[in-house]
């Protein structure tokens, strides 16, 4: 009966608030009331408090107000006899618990600065990662946005043993879900059990060890609140929309493994506010009626072999899992998995051996669907530690297949092989590097399985355009050489064709509303000369995607009559954007950052910003953590402009776009670029030099300032003047 849950949760909330307040007071005594506090590298302060209450916690003194709110919101214990309605008060108690825990964790960062390791993966001897920084949030956020990660499981406690824990974790991974871990049961912790079983953990493999206690559940919910603000474009303090956003769009749930204490109940109540139900392996009371969550609120006593399936059902989540005929687990969650040297069975490419992969089209009668040949020796015929040459040739055929789809199909090989548990794939074309682990080999993984995976996934994803797929894997060096020669000719032709495409020569652009699952009013318009701002989708990709799935998120946008060629505004684009944003946007300029710029969901690779003093434009990439001349770090910028809002003077774009001809063309193009982080400049150096040569300014790359020159406008202005940067002479931006 729910009364037991309500009573326990409210008691738990009281305990946690008491404890947090005590720790806060101790910290005030020790560090002084003006001591700064924060979670690592985030523009969202303590995110739940910031999102729900709109309060920025920057110092210990800021917590005083929130603690008094906690006291005000903490409900009285449930009457034993004639009780008053307790659902509402229990939910409040849950929320108050989260506020208190966030403050307690912030104090912990102060007291024990090295307790958590604030990166993607724990190093040797460490386990707990604590709050995700904003870089992780955005990088991982894209996966939530595009659906490669449909949600997350917050696991509290531990399984009865490591084997069960690994089984549950793997099942969640196979369903592409993130696993956020905290708390302990009977002295054991789920994350420790996975490590004990030899599993890799960390963000790259979607197994995230947040912390050892139940209080660290707050990091999972903090992640969710930030998603609502950064991708949903919801203002801090708009608590209702943040919570509903999570209920409707973030498919998360709590798995309570082990004894459910009063503190656990309090956290579960907090999660229910977000629409995240709890599924327990113990016989605690259930709350089956629906309403705050989409379906049941608490479901209990579920055996471990059914708990993941049950959780997914209770949350109302539809997970589409590729069925591939291989002897190891498979899915995007294994994408970030590493194969270390000591685990290595076989390696190909990576400058050690000759290696490549190539997708090509053949006439229908020359392809035998499903045929996978290993030409040369397969894995079991090679000794452990082998470095082998490898060429993967995928031959496809289909009535709808077109040559221009080949690069798109070929690029997918990276993901498809990486999804294999025990296989690592880096690079593409002739710079591929593939590793296969001993464990995978033991489980029966062979090279032919790589071919089978590609066959299965091609049919699953590209079934609309191709009818037949056959794969050849060559391990013979001479053969690999021959193939490389053929492929290089094709690759060269492709590059030239792609590079030559212009916006003018097409009458149709493509939309991308993939992110609308998270950012409902955001619409990307992808043109040949403006790739998608996430860096993942070119015009060709979108066109292919539309052919494959005509009802999908990439729709043709007829340009229609031109309104302004400098801004890049067309009637057709405006109409489309207006409709697809459900009226939130009226116009969009494809080439301008000043007038009706394109929106961003929040997962753009870079953000360009006007620097008025320099009469120029800077851009900053997601990975760069430092300050920038516009006064905002990337994460603050993304937080400000994300979520589908139009902000003149700010523009999200891809890295590739910087060297495309139409990049901020309306403002004068690349000549306006006065600052970018060094790491970004290095990454795109070759293309940057080439592009600058094209416009007759071969010296421009060296005129663009970076953080070594300065991170204020004043600092870089002197540099620009010295270098005679062209932006200074251009017409005023503002």
């Amino acid at each position: 009966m729910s009364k037991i849950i309500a009573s326990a949760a409210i008691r738990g909330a009281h305990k946690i608030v008491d404890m947090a307040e005590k720790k806060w007071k101790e910290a005030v005594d020790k560090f002084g009331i003006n001591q700064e506090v924060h979670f690592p590298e985030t523009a969202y302060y303590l995110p739940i408090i910031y999102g729900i209450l709109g309060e920025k916690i920057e110092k210990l003194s800021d917590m005083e107000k929130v603690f008094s709110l906690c006291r005000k919101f903490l409900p009285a214990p449930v009457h034993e006899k004639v009780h008053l309605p307790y659902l509402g008060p229990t939910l409040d108690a849950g929320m108050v618990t989260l506020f208190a825990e966030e403050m307690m964790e912030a104090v912990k960062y102060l007291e024990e600065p090295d307790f958590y390791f604030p990166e993607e993966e724990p190093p040797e001897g460490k386990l707990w990662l604590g709050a995700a920084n904003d870089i992780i949030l955005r990088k991982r956020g894209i996966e939530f946005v595009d659906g490669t990660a449909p949600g997350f499981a917050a696991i509290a406690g531990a399984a009865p043993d490591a084997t069960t824990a690994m089984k549950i974790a793997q099942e969640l991974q196979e369903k592409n879900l993130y696993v956020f871990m905290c708390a302990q049961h009977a002295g054991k912790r789920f994350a420790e059990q996975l490590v004990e079983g030899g599993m890799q953990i960390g963000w790259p493999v979607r197994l995230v060890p947040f912390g050892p206690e139940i209080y660290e559940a707050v990091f999972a919910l903090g992640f969710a609140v930030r998603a609502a603000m950064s991708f949903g474009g919801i203002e801090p303090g708009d608590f209702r929309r943040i919570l509903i956003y999570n209920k409707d769009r973030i498919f998360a749930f709590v798995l309570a493994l082990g004894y459910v204490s009063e503190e656990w109940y309090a956290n579960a109540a907090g999660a229910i506010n977000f629409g995240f139900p709890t599924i327990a392996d113990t016989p605690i009371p259930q709350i089956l009626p629906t309403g705050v969550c989409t379906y049941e609120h608490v479901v209990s006593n579920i055996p471990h072999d059914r708990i993941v399936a049950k959780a997914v059902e209770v949350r109302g989540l539809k997970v589409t899992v590729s069925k591939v005929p291989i002897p190891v687990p498979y899915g995007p969650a294994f994408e970030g998995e590493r194969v270390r040297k000591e685990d290595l069975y076989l390696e190909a490419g990576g400058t050690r051996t000759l290696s490549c992969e190539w997708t090509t089209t053949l006439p229908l009668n020359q392809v035998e669907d499903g045929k996978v040949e290993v030409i040369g020796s397969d894995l079991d015929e090679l000794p452990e530690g082998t470095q082998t040459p490898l060429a993967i040739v995928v031959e496809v055929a289909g009535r709808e297949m077109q040559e221009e789809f080949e690069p798109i199909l070929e690029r997918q090989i990276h993901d498809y092989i990486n999804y294999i548990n025990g296989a690592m794939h880096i690079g593409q074309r002739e710079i591929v590097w593939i590793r296969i682990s001993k464990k995978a080999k033991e489980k029966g993984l062979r090279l032919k399985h790589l071919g089978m995976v590609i066959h299965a996934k091609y049919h699953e994803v590209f079934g609309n355009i191709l009818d037949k797929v056959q794969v050849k894997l060559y391990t013979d060096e001479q053969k690999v050489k021959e193939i490389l020669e053929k492929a290089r000719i094709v690759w060269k032709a492709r590059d030239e064709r792609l590079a030559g495409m212009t916006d003018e020569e097409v009458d149709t652009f493509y939309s991308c509303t993939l992110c609308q699952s998270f950012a409902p009013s955001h619409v990307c318009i992808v043109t040949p000369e403006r790739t998608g701002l996430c860096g993942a989708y070119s015009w060709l990709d979108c066109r292919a995607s539309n052919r494959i799935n005509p009802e999908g998120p990439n729709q043709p946008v007829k340009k229609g009559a031109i309104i302004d060629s400098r801004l890049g505004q067309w009637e057709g684009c405006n109409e489309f954007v207006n409709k697809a944003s459900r009226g939130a946007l009226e116009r969009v300029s494809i080439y301008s950052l000043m007038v009706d710029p394109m929106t961003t969901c929040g997962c753009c690779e870079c953000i360009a910003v006007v620097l008025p003093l320099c009469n120029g434009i800077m851009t900053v990439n997601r990975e760069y953590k430092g300050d920038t001349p516009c006064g905002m770090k990337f994460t603050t910028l993304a937080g400000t402009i994300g979520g589908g809002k139009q902000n003149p003077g700010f523009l999200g774009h891809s890295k590739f776009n910087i060297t495309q001809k139409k990049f901020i063309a309306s403002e004068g193009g690349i000549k306006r670029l006065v600052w970018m982080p060094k790491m970004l400049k290095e990454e795109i150096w070759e293309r940057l030099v080439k592009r600058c040569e094209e416009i007759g300014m071969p010296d421009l790359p060296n005129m663009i300032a970076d953080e070594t020159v300065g991170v204020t406008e004043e600092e870089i202005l002197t540099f620009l003047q010295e270098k005679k940067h062209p932006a200074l002479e251009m017409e005023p931006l503002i």
Partner: protein
Amino acid sequence: MEWSRDGSAKKLLQEIREEDFQLSWDRLQEQLPQCGFGILGICCRNCSMGPCRIDPFGENAQVGVCGADADTITARNFLRMVAAGVSAHSDHGRAVAETLIKVARGEAPGYEIKDEYKLLKLALEFGLEVEGKKIEDIALQVGINALHEFGNQEGEITLVKRAPLKRQNIWRKLGVVPRGVDREVVEALHRTHMGTDQNYLHIMRQATRCALSDGWAGSMLATELQDILFGTPTPIVGKVNLGVLKEDQVNIIVHGHEPLLSEMIVMAARDPEMLKMAKEKGARGINIAGICCTANEVLMRHGIPLAGNFLNQELAITTGAVEVMVVDVQCVMQSLPTIASCFHTRIITTSEKAKISGATHMEFSEENALKKAKEIIKMAIERFPLRKKSQVRIPAGEVDLVAGFTHETITYMLGGMFRASYKPLNDNIIGGRIRGVAGVVGCNNPKVTHDESHLIMVKELLKQDVLVLQTGCAAIACAKEGLLDPVKGLEYCGDGLREVCEAVGIPPVLHLGACVDNSRILVAATAMVKEGGLGDDISELPAAGAAPEWMSEKAISIGQYFVASGVFTVFGVTWPTLGSKNLSRYLFEEIEEEMGGKWAFEPDPLKAAHLMIEHINKKRKALGIDKARERVLFDMEMRRGLE
């Protein structure tokens, strides 16, 4: 027929059997047989050419002296009942508006504005500027605007805008949106004057318009303004039964309808000076208990115990333990002073509108309310030593209950501060755990066993997973049975309803307050529509209303505004239009096409409950929620499709 189903009333009736009190049941016996023409509604005494009556068997006179036929006569009588009911509720609302104005002007010591948020909300609904204004100034303007709702001559009453859009359009199309409360009552009386409106359908239009001015103005304003002045109720534990009277304390019963004075009595009773005085007279304390809607008002806001409902009023005095009974307006029996005269009990009338021969009149106004309240308490304390121990017979046993449900508390209790909404209610209706919602309200009537119809009906509804909302004497009846106890009440529920009540921690019967608070049901029904998933109008909701033991004209007004708001409404006991086939057919059938709601008359409460359930089932079917719902699993595409 048994007189009462109420355990403590039965015990008391047993004890006083030998004594010579004349109670309502006795008086009813003496009235029998009652006039058949009157019962059928075909007696007209609106002019001195009459009284006229129509032969219901069609053999003798079929028209009155003026030519009015049975349809006209019953319709006119019906409209006059509506008008009287509207007047009662609305005068109540007007009194609160006047109090608010006096509070704003600082002329009502003891009163204050307790719910500023609600005041601001109402101010915005009235289209008032609130930015940068003092709260008193806003209150004053709201009070003045509220009074305009009564005296307004043209246009529309403001709060019709609260109704679902579809509903407003239905009203506008039929021309039944009230202009102002007083105007509609006056027009009702005018139209029913000899030789005026003589088309029964046309008369009924005015009945609708007049009744709507009760539900969406008079009553609604009474509720809103009382919440502003005395605080919006929140869930609260209370007790009910004649057993709440205390043998060792000064017992003061507040009875009637308006909380204006009773609030002050409650406040004054906590005054240490008063308590000291009581102790000096040998009492352990001052116990306030309520009867009828005054009881509901002070229960909802202060947890003051309920002594009982309408038919308990005379019995309360016969406990011999009541020092004073303070009454104001409506549903107060003239017999009270007579019965009180056998005891030390004083009946005190307090309203300038209502005096009773034999009672002490201590008229109260906002300016002197606290002073008067203290005087009344002092008088009660003075009378405590006069109580005759030998005459005291308080039936033992109190029953626990939870009350204090309002539109605001429903949203809070279903989602807390951060997710407050009707969503869980709608969702569980759609999902079928809750079949629907029923408003079971109204009075007691000695023609049927006291409280029994309420209990039979409500228990059947609960068994069929219908969540029950109550006000007035109906709520008190069910409270006495334990149906408002969040644990005991669940014993009567179907599995689905029980599960939801357990999840939320509520009793299956929600007490929404006094009879003016039926407006809370309108607000709640509208909120359900607006929450989504249950159609676009109140008439599409799987909901029904009933007053199985009705007796007052207010009940007819309430019923008519519920029907006109789209609710199927069943009345028991007797029905005032049976003398006209045409009018009855209109009310029981044809009106549904216009209004979406209709009346039914069914004296058997179990059958009436089944009519309600059938109606709810019909609405479920129309909404397509009559079948088990498949669990929808969401993929990314569906998430993208979300608005």
